[in-house]
């Protein structure tokens, strides 16, 4: 029975050489299994199998009240944890029609951009390591420690903050927050060109990524590939420009769009996004208005009956939160449109015809975080 299911999926001839990359593998960032059908070294067909880390987050949210579901959303795409929180909070605030203080929107946007930079730094470390340049792992993580120190000083934890609540934040920022951010920007602006010298310009790296796995604009739109992977193919999908939330209407920044769509373009889009995030931070960090860190909310929140949707731009693409409420303390049904889920399945189209080494490069450039796929 199992054999038949596998044969139907693969649809290969009987003497195909099938190997499994994963689920335990140093390069798939999380538990993901690729079933690869090979001819020599060339890939004929790739089928990704996800679901190894499904934890039932959407179901768990149905029994928790609205302030309690924040801590679960952190753990979906843990590298952009704050943005997940913000999506749910914005949706709940939209439903309750609550006006949050301006200080809260500034701090939320600053934390968004810091999370984006930290996520891209980790992505860069892992991409270099997958390609074989093992030192990039340590350089990227060393620089990421400075951001994690900022988080730890103000909120107590490094990776997962859980600091949002419907109506504002759970606590105010520390007094050293702005100073540390400015120090970090000064430090990182000097270090980022080193990344280019070490990896981007390197002839070996360019040979391995230029012209590999071109993603056309039609495919990106059809499969719903958003985030930096989509923007590298010309798909203008930045939610911060289309449907701005938080402080984004007041901030001046560019949307990074390229048209080639191959692996090195996806790489370059993320490096340039790091520069843009630093520009946004510089515009915001000195102008945080004074005020409350939260609006006055009731102890028990009941959303009105109806359906509410909110989308934000995480480090990997468009995250959508869809809440169906029937008037109770908990949502009747909550659904997350996860960016990594749509980004994953483009691999079956992109990797055909390339070699196994390229499969690793492609999945590295798509920047997948597996818990987000399985939720």
């Amino acid at each position, binding site marked *: 029975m199992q054999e038949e299911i596998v044969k139907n999926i693969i649809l290969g001839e009987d003497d195909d*050489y099938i190997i499994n990359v994963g689920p335990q593998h140093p390069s798939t960032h999380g538990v993901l299994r690729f079933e690869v059908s090979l001819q020599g070294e060339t890939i004929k067909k790739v089928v990704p199998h996800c679901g190894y880390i499904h934890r039932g987050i959407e179901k768990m949210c149905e029994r928790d009240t609205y302030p309690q579901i924040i801590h679960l959303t952190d753990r979906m795409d843990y590298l952009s944890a704050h943005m997940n929180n913000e999506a749910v909070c914005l949706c709940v605030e939209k439903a309750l029609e609550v006006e949050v203080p301006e200080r809260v929107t500034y701090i939320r946007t600053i934390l968004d951009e810091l999370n984006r930079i930290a996520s891209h730094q980790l992505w860069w470390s892992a991409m270099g390591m997958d390609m074989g340049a093992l*030192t990039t792992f340590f350089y990227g993580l060393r620089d990421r420690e400075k951001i994690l120190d900022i988080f730890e000083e103000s909120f107590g934890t490094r990776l997962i903050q859980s600091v949002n609540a419907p109506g504002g934040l759970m606590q105010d920022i520390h007094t050293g927050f702005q100073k540390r951010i400015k120090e970090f920007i000064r430090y990182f602006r000097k270090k980022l060109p080193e990344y280019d010298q070490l990896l981007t310009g390197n002839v070996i790296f360019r040979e*391995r990524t230029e012209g590999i796995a071109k993603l056309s604009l039609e495919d990106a739109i059809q499969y719903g590939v958003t985030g930096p992977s989509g923007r590298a193919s010309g798909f203008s999908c930045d939610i911060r420009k289309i449907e701005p939330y938080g402080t984004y209407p007041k901030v001046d920044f560019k949307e990074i769009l390229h048209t080639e769509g191959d692996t090195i373009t996806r790489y370059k889009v993320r490096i340039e996004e790091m520069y843009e995030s630093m520009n946004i931070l510089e515009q915001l960090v000195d102008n945080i208005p004074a005020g409350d860190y939260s609006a006055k909310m009731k102890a028990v929140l009941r959303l009105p009956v109806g359906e509410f949707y909110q989308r934000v731009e995480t480090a990997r693409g468009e995250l959508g939160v869809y809440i169906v409420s029937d008037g109770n303390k908990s949502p009747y049904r909550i659904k997350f449109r996860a960016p990594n889920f749509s980004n994953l399945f483009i691999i079956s189209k992109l990797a055909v015809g390339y070699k196994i080494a390229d499969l*690793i490069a492609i999945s590295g450039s798509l920047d997948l975080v597996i818990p987000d796929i399985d939720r």
Partner: protein
Amino acid sequence: MTFDIYDFSGLTQSIDKGLKASMSPGWTLLTEFVIIGLIFLIFYAILGLFLVYAERKVCAFIQNRIGPNRVGPLGIFQTIADLIKLLMKELIPIKNADKLLFNIAPFIVIIASFMAIAAIPFAKGLHAIDFNIGIFYIIAVSSLGVVGILLAGWSSNSKYSLIGAMRSGAQVISYELSIGLSLLTIVVFAGTMQLSGIVESQANGWWIFKGHIPAVIAFVVFLIASTAETNRGPFDLAEAESELTAGFHTEYSGIKFAFFFLAEFMNMFIVASIAATVFLGGWMPLHFGVDNAFNRIMDYIPPIVWFFGKTGTVILIMMWFKWTFPRLRIDQLLTLEWKYLLPINLLNIVVVAFLTLMGWHF
């Protein structure tokens, strides 16, 4: 016994005379074989341990961290602890694997590198096998290692190992050519294949200085080709951890894995010492010209220190390559060899032959 650190031939001659005085010539020869074999075994093992420690420390400093620092002062006993752990591991026999080939594959790799190390001149008078076709012998013998790798991959009965072994076989065979041709440039300059002759001919300057541009080109080509030959650095896709777990030695555990690991480091030592001997003068101190004050100052440092210093520098450069660059794909590796290194080599040899004929080198 006369022990002169500048010239070991006094020591070896006196040992030889002492043995001949108490045994017949046949037994003397046998005893000498055993003594040299033991010395090489111990040297091999100790150097292997030291090189593994050095690699971990170099890697750590490049990556902004400390490296082994707990087992012993500055962590120098870390490799011994690893060795004890490997010795105590369970040797898992593979079902359906070809038992004979599976077991002899690591030994073939080690034997090949032993045979090569015997022919290297360590210092004046410390030269175990001094063939008159020294370079030819070394190149021939170091290509026996690929047989071990292919046998290991094939007999493991696992898809990953097979892919790794096939890649590695293609790679090693291609880069043999470049190594041979780049060494040939210096043979043309020096006029002899005998290693002691090549070292003696550098008494008035190392070939990398005397043979100006072609020698530098040959040195760079030799460095690249030798890192590829030993499956190291940016050419290590045969054991690419992030792609295929461990490639051709996935199924080996315990002492057999230790053999492969050790053989890789010793191969690195061998190609580094060949580079040091042929291009950088072996145990010859740095001389410019024939007889001047600078040469006399350089002569104070014993030749064995020169030899290990040069080899150490070349090893450091090879480690530097490994930790900086990403990995090459198999087709890019073969493109590099056949389309770039080989034409440059051939052109280089023609130029060198012309220069030697005209006498246009120092």
